[in-house]
């Protein structure tokens, strides 16, 4: 008489049951799930790519609308307005500058030449030539010019006695240059 004794543990018995047909089904299931997800992702990717192309063409259509006759004119008008605003903001008023300078010239001093240049940033360089009745008037004039409100710098170049009429003293001729701020040219 033979007695068969099962030495394997209950867990091992369970392990043994995890083989064969269930394992095959599980394996096929896992692979099928992976392949299915791959197919779904590819399908959706292609769909999104097609949608993207469709939307891109719609975007181009919408973008091109600003080039249509009416809207292009409107945009051109707005562009001109923006540029004109910049021009108007930096617009120089030379008559205003000359009038302002009038308050900073002593009655004993008169100009013979005035030369002004405006720079790209709106500031300017003014070259003055003139005569003062005497040195005292010239020195007072220079002090007065230094208080010109829009003055950036003042350079006194030279002074000399000028010939007068009919033997009369002609006074002191002088040259000076003033660097003025943008505000000097504004109203």
């Amino acid at each position, binding site marked *: 008489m033979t007695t068969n004794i099962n030495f394997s543990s209950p867990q091992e018995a369970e392990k043994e049951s995890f083989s064969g047909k269930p394992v095959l089904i599980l394996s096929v299931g896992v692979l099928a799930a992976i392949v299915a997800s791959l197919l779904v992702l590819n399908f959706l990717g292609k769909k999104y790519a097609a949608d993207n192309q469709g939307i891109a063409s719609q975007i181009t259509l919408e973008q091109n609308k600003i080039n249509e006759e009416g809207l*292009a004119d409107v945009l051109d008008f707005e562009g001109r307005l923006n540029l004109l605003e910049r021009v108007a903001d930096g617009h120089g008023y030379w008559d205003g500058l000359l009038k302002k300078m009038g308050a900073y010239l002593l009655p004993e001093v008169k100009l013979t030449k005035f030369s002004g240049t405006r720079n790209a940033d709106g500031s300017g360089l003014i070259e003055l030539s003139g005569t003062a009745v005497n040195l005292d008037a010239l020195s007072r004039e220079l002090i007065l010019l230094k208080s010109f409100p829009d003055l950036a710098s003042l350079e006194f170049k030279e002074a000399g006695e000028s010939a007068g009429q009919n033997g009369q003293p002609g006074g002191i001729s002088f040259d000076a240059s003033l660097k003025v701020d943008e505000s000097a040219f504004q109203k």
Partner: protein
Amino acid sequence: MKLKVLILPLSLVVAVALAIFFVKPSFSEFMAARSELKEKTALLENLKSQNQKLQNVKSKWDSLGEEQTLVATALPETESVDAYISELFSKAARSGILLSDVKIEQANQGAGAATSPAYVCSAASGEGLPQGAPSPEEAGSPDAIGGGENPAGQATVSANCLKATGISMTAKGTWEQMLDFFKYLEDMNRISETGLLGLDSGTESAGQPASDLLTASISLDIFFKPADSKGSVALAQELAARGNFNQKAIEKMKTLIYAPYNMPAVSPGSERNLFK
């Protein structure tokens, strides 16, 4: 029996390999396409809304008759200086100024080509580039909408500057007439900027005092801007966001061009004749 044991591990290995080599790249592509679609959908909605707003602005533009004329005169599409010169002589005559040596420089070689403001296109860097502005290549930044796909991006750059034509002239007149003329020059229908101004009272010679007549050398820039057949994307965005035209600019232009005429005041207090 041994083969049966290997089925599950093998299938898992195959599954992982498939996931790594095929599913993951597909998933990345899918996510990128989805994200792109989301962005483009938002962009399309934005563009539709923008174009709708622009249509509303366009209806306002149709009613801006006076302002359209004002802007077209102040900043014409062509260089033509005939109307300006005609106005110049008319203003000179009204001020009592004798105008001579009126010379017209080439476009973009205005009164102070080296010192032109930033809004004047640089001749050296080609058409449509404001002075000191980076070229489109240098800028390297696509338009906010549409990226580099829209050729209108080029128009964005050219919309930022205008072209200048220089005019130089000599004027003769008294101090009061000069002030009067300068005032007119500042309020011309076509906007201009005086870059150089020289005033000379003449020299006293042989016992003769200098006359009251002053000689002025004037160099100024007048501007023009060719029409943009292609709308600027940046401008379209700006205009749609604002929902109206640049009203401040319109007001400034009206103030500048329609400035009331004031007789030149030469008072003993401050506004004196600098040459007397």
